[in-house]
């Protein structure tokens, strides 16, 4: 019974990974691709869980931890890189006041 359920779960998780890959390949913006990459990483951890259930071993748990860490770090790296590409604009920041004063002087 558990073998049949593991096979069904493998098929379902493979389908979810294919949907995430479709979003990665055809995402309109970069953020959609990042989200799809995150979904693919989590689906891969789920497949490791299923493999570990099928083989009845606990040796893959550390590898699951490392893979979840890698997916998280990849997402955070992409997001923080894009975050620095957009200049921060708050009305209380010093650069904003400087630019506003410069614009007033040019007028």
């Amino acid at each position, binding site marked *: *019974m*558990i073998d*049949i*359920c*593991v096979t*069904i*779960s493998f098929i*379902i*998780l493979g*389908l*979810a*990974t*294919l*949907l*995430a890959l*479709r*979003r990665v390949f055809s995402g309109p*913006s970069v*953020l*959609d691709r*990042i*989200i*799809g990459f*995150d*979904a693919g990483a*989590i*689906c891969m*951890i*789920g497949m490791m*869980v*299923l493999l*570990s*259930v099928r083989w*009845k071993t*606990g040796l893959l*748990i*550390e590898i*699951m*931890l490392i893979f*979840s*860490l890698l997916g*998280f770090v990849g*997402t*955070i790296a992409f*997001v*923080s890189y*894009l*975050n620095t*590409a*957009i*200049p921060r*604009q708050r009305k209380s920041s010093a650069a904003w006041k400087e*630019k*506003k004063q*410069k*614009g007033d002087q040019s007028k």
Partner: protein
Amino acid sequence: MIREIIASLLLVLGSSLMLLAGIGLVRFRDPLSRAHALTKATTLGISLLLIALWVILEDDISGLKILLVIIFCLLTTPLSGHMVASLYYRQLHKKERPPENAEDSSRSE
């Protein structure tokens, strides 16, 4: 026997939640709603899968390590969703700047 029944139920439930997250990822129209669909469903799905592994292994040390993985997933998945959502929010409100900043933004991209 009862262990296998509980574990298989949790496995099918968790992977169905992951499939729901994938369907939401494809069907929704906005990066905000996609991140919303992905974050909650995959957090619960991966937790259910790991609990199923805990039930099937019958081992205390592996159970503690699985608890560590569950806590790590519960910490990191909502955080990455929040980062993506805040970045999209800032990209959405990028154009509401005065015109003397507009040429700066076009240069930096």
